[in-house]
């Protein structure tokens, strides 16, 4: 059974249609990266899943409960970190966590232990007595994350949790999310590809309010392998090699690049969808009296898939 199920979700703000029929599923235990450029509709989708606002139409279920009709049941199972991590600046860290614990119905006798646990897990135990606005951004981010965990939710929704952090902190927070993902179902919104690729087992790409692609990083590469490139290094006459390569079936396009070795030339070959011309290349190059020094197959980077998918329209 899907932990999160979204069916044909639409959301119209006063003048823009932010979601135009979004559907996707998240299974129990998955860490799903929700990826898209600015304004794609990521935050809008998460606000609907967290029952902060209602969709204009469509269906969203979290942990078996409908977001529209049973918001309290959904929210009880959900840890939600809103975009920009809003916190009450005047509160002390433990006051804020206690506040969140009480609002999430953690029994009084467990609150202390829970606060202690999340403070240790998220690495802000030493700041527990500080006033929030005196803390650095990195600590505030950890506190925001800690607050979403205080009632030990089954499901986590994190909207850009690493924005504005320095590289070391980013690595730490990603590690933390990965660790959390062992026990929980996680949706991680981001427009940073590497982040999603490193932390998530599956990626959903949204663009202009519709789902543009979804799958594991490997599946996405496979689907979009129109972008597979071969790098070939040949010793011999450049013009002749170029002619031969371009004529091989399955080769869409050939470019040259320079290599260090004397008398050798590099070629970048764009391969047609679902073709693998490598055996053909090695045979024909040698038959023509040229020396084949290297063939390297470059998988489409997620970067290029992302660009391809989100700039199509």
């Amino acid at each position, binding site marked *: 059974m899907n932990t999160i199920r979204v069916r044909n979700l639409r959301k119209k703000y006063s003048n823009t249609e932010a979601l135009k029929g979004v559907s996707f599923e998240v299974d129990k235990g998955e860490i799903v990266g929700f990826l898209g450029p600015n304004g794609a509709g990521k935050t809008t989708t998460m606000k609907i899943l967290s029952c902060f*606002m*209602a969709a*204009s139409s469509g269906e969203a279920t979290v942990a078996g409960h409908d977001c529209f009709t049973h918001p309290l049941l959904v929210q009880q199972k959900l840890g939600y970190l*809103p975009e920009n991590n*809003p916190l009450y600046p005047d509160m002390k860290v433990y006051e804020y966590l206690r506040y969140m614990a009480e*609002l999430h119905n953690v029994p009084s006798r467990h609150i202390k232990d829970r606060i202690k646990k999340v403070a240790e897990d998220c690495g802000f135990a030493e700041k527990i007595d500080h006033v929030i606005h005196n803390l650095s951004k990195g600590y505030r981010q950890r506190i925001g994350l800690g*607050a979403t965990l205080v009632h030990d939710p089954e499901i986590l929704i994190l909207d850009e949790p690493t924005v504005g952090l320095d590289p070391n902190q980013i690595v730490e927070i990603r590690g933390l999310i990965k660790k959390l993902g062992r026990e929980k179902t996680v949706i991680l919104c981001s427009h940073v590809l590497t982040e999603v690729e490193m932390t998530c087992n599956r990626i959903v790409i949204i663009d202009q309010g519709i789902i543009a692609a979804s799958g594991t990083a490997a599946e996405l590469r496979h689907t979009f392998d129109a972008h597979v490139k071969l790098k070939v290094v040949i010793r011999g006459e450049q013009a002749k090699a170029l002619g031969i390569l371009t004529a091989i079936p399955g080769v869409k396009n050939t470019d040259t690049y320079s290599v260090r070795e004397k008398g050798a030339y590099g070629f970048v070959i764009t391969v047609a969808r679902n073709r693998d011309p490598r055996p053909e290349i090695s045979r024909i190059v040698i038959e023509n009296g040229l020396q084949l020094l290297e063939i390297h197959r470059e998988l489409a980077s997620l970067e290029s898939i992302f660009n391809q998918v989100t700039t199509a329209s």
Partner: protein
Amino acid sequence: MKFRHINTIMQKELQGYFNSPLAYIFMAVFLVFTSWAFFRGVFLAGQAAMRGYFALLPWVFLLLIPAITMRQFSEERKMGTMEVLLTAPVTPWEAVLGKFFASFSFLLMNLIFSLIIPAILFIIGWPDWGTIAAGYLGALFLGAAYLAIGLFISSLADSQIISFILSAVFIFALFIIGDDAVLRAVPLSLVPIFKFLGLGVHFSSILRGVLDSRDVVYYALLVFLFLHLTVANIHNRRWR
């Protein structure tokens, strides 16, 4: 509706008042101003009564209560913490009541401090306890009504200043519509309605020392109406 949620929100709000200088400024202004109003009456008229003091209260409240309520929801919206509050398993009624009771407790605290004045009266003369009790009761009702209106307006406006000004203007309007000067200007058929709606009419009626159930019902309805409007406004974004 969970009492624990209301209590949690109320405690947090109250603590929030005292984390900012506003609460202390409020208390100081309230006490200085009301004592001045009172002792002026004592020295000028030579009477140990609190009538002048209570007559002044609606105007003091008019400036001070919007200052309490202006940040209640405006600030949460502006800072984005509204999202934190409303994505917790908390109903809008719990959030609204938590905030309302917090501001009401704060008002109650101020009124309790101001009990120094009747205490002094007790020393310098024999006060009229009936009037004083009625006056304090009226002040609580009136304050609750102002607070509910202010809370509603803070749920509409993102800016604290706008929230303050709108609340003060709206409360002022509602206060004076039952006033004779206004009544003379409206069609005769509307006079009873204006008279019933006017905040001031009911307050002076309580001050007279007669506790009429109509006044109590009026204030209870007014408070309920505005709390309900606040809830509806918060709920609004959850509707399709």
